[in-house]
């Protein structure tokens, strides 16, 4: 299955990423699909992460964890979080086929980020749900 997103939807998604994340100090945030494609991204301009490699690894990682969830009788673990010394990564599922990934440092509180993620997931789901065509 191939899917297409137009200028309007991508602008709307990028606006959500910018407003909800880069404005609160998240260094890099991106939306990917479960195949590992990068749909949209925003960053603070201070970092140069290779988001295409990160996307491939994140999709694989999320898939592996979801399979682990099924083995122990859970439908899924919808939120994943990896804590580093300086930078941490937070993953959240958006609808069935997308993942929102945020990279942030110790200045951003996890609780606040999770609040923002939850809000953004709803907004992005609305954009994708209304606009995406198979």
């Amino acid at each position, binding site marked *: 299955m*191939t*899917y297409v*997103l137009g200028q309007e939807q*991508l602008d709307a998604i990028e606006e959500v990423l910018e407003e909800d994340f880069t404005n609160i100090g998240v260094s890099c945030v991106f939306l990917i699909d479960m*195949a590992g*494609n*990068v749909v949209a991204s925003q960053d603070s301009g201070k970092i140069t992460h290779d988001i295409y490699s990160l996307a491939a690894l994140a999709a694989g990682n999320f898939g592996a964890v979801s399979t682990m969830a099924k083995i122990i009788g859970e439908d899924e673990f919808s939120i994943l979080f990896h804590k580093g010394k300086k930078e941490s990564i937070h993953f959240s599922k958006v609808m069935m086929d997308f993942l929102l990934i945020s990279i942030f440092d110790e200045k951003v509180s996890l609780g606040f980020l999770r609040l923002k993620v939850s809000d953004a997931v709803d907004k992005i789901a609305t954009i994708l749900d209304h606009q995406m065509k198979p």
Partner: protein
Amino acid sequence: MAFVNLKKKEVQVKIVYYGPGRGGKTTNLEYIYETYNDRIKTEMIAIKTQGDRTLFFDFLPFEMGKIMGYDVKIQLYTVPGQVKYDATRRLVLRGVDGVVFVADSMAVRRKNNMLSLKNLQDNLATYKKSIFKIPLVLQYNKRDLSDKGIPLLSCESMEKDLNSRLKVPSIEGSALNGQNVVQTLKQIITLTMAALEKEFK
């Protein structure tokens, strides 16, 4: 699951190298990485075991340049070939747009090739994809080993074993010395792009 970004005029396509363990999937990607260094901006990602076998996947993003005004980004993946890693193999296939099946030409690996191809069919079916419909190229790898006196399957017998029903393009090659690695890649990209174009017409 190819993604078309109309804003950036960009298409992202996922191609997976599949096949039995020790067949040369990773070696194909390594050769591509060395040959097209100028088009690959990042390091090749390889998640492997201590014994240097693929544990999860290898990943290589590859810039194709423009096709019909769109920048085409090809994401190349390999799967782990070992039988026990079936769950991770299935994960890597998620959203696949085209497959290269790297078959091992060594006579002793005949059964492994057939089992792996059947496994590809089963795993594609879990994503409701048919092996008869997905863009697919067979590569009969390790042809160079005949020079070393190692018994190889003839291409005719490999065709009969693997391609009698599929009837997809098949290419003899040697991933180790690069023989037909690029041709295999070009062939799968051509088939995959043609399938995408057809989907949009």
